[in-house]
Every structure is written in structure tokens, then in C-alpha cells.
């Protein structure tokens, strides 16, 4: 006999799903914001000519880019309390892990973006008396960021999906909620299908908004949208 699809038990638990979505967005949003700031910091450190500054940044970046996110999360949540006695809530552990992890990726995106801006732009800025910092802030970064938007988007989407790992440390994100509902209703297929749809809708909306932003920034004729 064919499988009888029944979504009603899933929709009956819509409040659980909604709460899960809010928590997922919370972890993703906070990690993205912290990751961006921290990532720029790492990138600037890595670009420094002083090895004492560039090497530690390079080390952190490589460690977080090359190790599995699940291990990083476990490490912050389970190992850190054992080693240095720092206890973190699941939310905090998740945010710390994913902030540093996305910072490691964003640092490379920032670095590539900054390096891609022609030397002449630095020359033009310095020739009118700008300091290195002013040239970076006013001239180089605005051009670099514009070119980085597609890569940022890619990472943001990747991050939102990676946050599903927080379910493993019992943080009630969307996937955690889905697990609960599936066990309660015996409707795992329907539940996970709905959850996938939610991810699809949220991420697609996010992508469209970013493309819109890219288009708006393209006014000056220097664009990444074709």
C-alpha cells in the first residue's frame, strides 16, 4: 500500500517549529555579525607585515577552516569546562564556535577582497594625505566589500545550515524541534520535509535580498552582477 502523507500533525506543532526557527536565526545572525567583525580583524592581522601579528591570525584561521565544525562545537561545549573550567550554555557555545569559524572563512574572503583592489587606489588615497587606516576605510574596503558580497552570501548560507549541529548539544534550533516533533508524531518524513522547505524559503529570501543589495551598490558601474 502506498504511503499516506499526512502533514496535519506537523502543522499542529507549528509553534515548536517557529521557536526552533527563531533560535536558528538567532545563532546564525549573531554568529554572522560577530564573524564579520572578527573576520575583518583576522584579515587585517594576517595582512600585517609583522610576523608576530600575522602568524597567530593565520594559525587560528587554518585551524578553524580545516577541522570539522562538530568537533569545534564539542570542544567549546564539553572540553573547555574540563580544561579551564569555563561553562557555557548551549547558545553561547554555539555562538562562540560559529563566530570564530565563520570569522576564519570571512578573514580569507576579506583578505582576497582587499588584495584584489588595485595598488593605484592606495596610491591615490595616500597622495592626498590619507593615513593607512583612512585609505583602508574610505577607499579600499568599500570597493573590496562590494566584490566580496557573493562569497559572503555563500558562507552565510553554509553557516545557516551548519548551525543544525547545535541540536547535538541540545540547543533547541529548527532541526532539534523537528526531531522532537518527528518522535512525538511518528511523522518524520513530513516533519523533515517541512523543515527543509523552511530552510529553502528563508535562504532563498536571504539570497534575493543580497542580490538586490548588490545591484544597488553597482550604481557606480563597478559591479559583480552581470
Amino acid at each position, binding site marked *: 500500500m502506498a504511503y499516506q502523507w499526512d502533514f496535519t500533525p506537523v502543522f499542529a506543532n507549528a509553534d515548536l517549529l517557529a521557536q526552533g526557527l527563531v533560535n536558528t536565526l538567532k545563532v546564525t545572525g549573531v554568529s554572522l555579525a560577530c564573524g564579520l567583525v572578527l573576520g575583518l580583524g583576522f584579515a587585517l592581522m594576517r595582512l600585517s607585515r609583522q610576523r608576530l601579528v600575522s602568524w597567530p591570525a593565520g594559525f587560528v584561521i587554518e585551524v578553524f577552516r580545516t577541522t570539522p565544525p562538530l568537533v569545534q562545537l564539542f570542544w567549546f561545549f564539553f572540553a573547555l569546562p574540563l580544561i579551564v573550567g569555563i561553562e557555557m550554555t548551549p547558545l553561547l557555545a554555539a555562538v562562540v564556535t560559529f563566530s570564530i569559524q565563520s570569522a576564519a572563512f570571512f578573514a580569507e574572503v576579506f583578505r582576497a577582497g582587499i588584495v584584489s583592489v588595485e595598488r593605484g587606489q592606495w596610491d591615490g588615497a*595616500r597622495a*592626498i*594625505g*590619507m*593615513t593607512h587606516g583612512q585609505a583602508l576605510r*574610505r577607499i579600499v574596503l568599500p570597493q573590496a566589500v*562590494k566584490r566580496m558580497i557573493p562569497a559572503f552570501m555563500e558562507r552565510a548560507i553554509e553557516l545557516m545550515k551548519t548551525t543544525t549541529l547545535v541540536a547535538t548539544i541540545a540547543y533547541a534550533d529548527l532541526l532539534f524541534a523537528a526531531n522532537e516533533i518527528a518522535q512525538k508524531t511518528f511523522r518524520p518524513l513530513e516533519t523533515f520535509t517541512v523543515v527543509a522547505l523552511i530552510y529553502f524559503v528563508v535562504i532563498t529570501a536571504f539570497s534575493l535580498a543580497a542580490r538586490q543589495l548588490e545591484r544597488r551598490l553597482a550604481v*557606480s*558601474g*563597478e559591479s559583480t552582477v552581470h
Partner: protein
Amino acid sequence: MTILGVSGLTKRFGANTVIAGIDLDVKKGERIAVLGASGSGKSTLLRCLNFMEMPDAGTIALDGKVIGRRESELTLVRQRIGMVFQQFNLFPHMTALGNVMEGLRTVRRMSKPDARARAERELARVGLADKAAHYPAHLSGGQKQRVAIARALAMDPELLLFDEPTSALDPELVGEVLGVIRALAEEGRTMLLVTHELGFAYHVATRVIFLADGTIHEQGTPDEVLKHPRRERTQAFLARHKEFSL
């Protein structure tokens, strides 16, 4: 009166010595054309004068005061020495007006209305008042270079450095840029100009310097250097540029 005093200037890139101990005094109101074959160190000399390149040895004094290497000092010096580049180096994310306002706003901390008024005057001076709202991508090469000149002028420089300002331009656009530089010359501005436009150098410069192997090989009035060169290499260089008309 000497504005810029250069002494023993040396610049190396790796094992390659590009500037080999140049002494040069630039007096107020002088217009110095710097000539030389490619690789003779013309651009590097100019770029050392406002420390876009850090000299390896020698001193540069502005108004008699030797310039140090601290960034705070260099940013002040660069405001007093304007520079115009071969590739314009306009900021593509800002309009023509924005490009000219940028130094006034960010470096001089001038108020927005003041900076705007000043930038509009500078754009009008180079004949581009009607292009203020255009982004560089929508300007011709000649217009871009004129915006770049306006950007340099906005900082009230005491000395202007032109690094092959017309070399990247289509031939029919060279005239409009040279016209602006000539007008600045007529105002009595002090300038150093690296150029391949020998005819322009002859008519506008007060002194011509011929560089070879990173040293000043020959210098004098335009008439002396361009019409009656004494050194062999100067003669050979000019022979290669025979097509120019004085």
C-alpha cells in the same frame, strides 16, 4: 627660494638600483620636465619625492626641513605635494565631485558644504563643472585625468608632481589634459613633470632634466637640453624621439 631639496637620493628594488644618488633643488615657480628612457628611474624619482616609495638613502627637505619617516609627518607632506598619476587612480565608488571632496572631508576634516563648494570650484577650473555627478566609469580618459588634477589641487599643494599624465590617454584626449597643466603653469605653480611629450616640455618647462641609469645625466633650459644636448645619451634619446616638433 628652494621649496624641495633632494640630496643623495637612492632607491633600490632588490639588487637593482633604480635611483643612484640624485641631488636636486626645486625652486618656487620652477617647472621641471623629467625625461629619460623607460627604466631610467623617472617615475621612481617622482614617487620618492612624496614618499610613495621609501628612499633607501638620502634626504628630502621641504621648505628647508628634512622630512622624517613617521606616517603622521608623511601625511602632512603629501598634502603639500600633490600627485597626478598615469593611471588616474580615481576612486571608482565616488562621483567626480566625491573624488575631489574626499581629501577635504577625510584628511582636512572640512565641513560638507565647504568641501562641496571648494570641490565644485576645482572641477570648474578643469572645465568639468557639468560632470560633478558622474562616476569615473562614465568619464573619458581625459576627463578622468582632469578630475584627478582637480583632486590634487583641492589640497592646495605647494608642489605638483605629474607622473606621465597623458601616457594612458588616446591621442585625441592628450590636448585637453595638457591644456589644464599649461594653465597651471601660467599661474606660476611649481611642478615636476615626467613626460614623453617633448614639445610640451619645451614650451612649458623652465628646466629639463634628462635621467639615465638613475642619475641626472644632463640638465639645463629646454633650449639647452632639447635643442643643443651635449651628452651622447641625451642626443641618442632625442634622436629616437625625432618625430616630435619643437
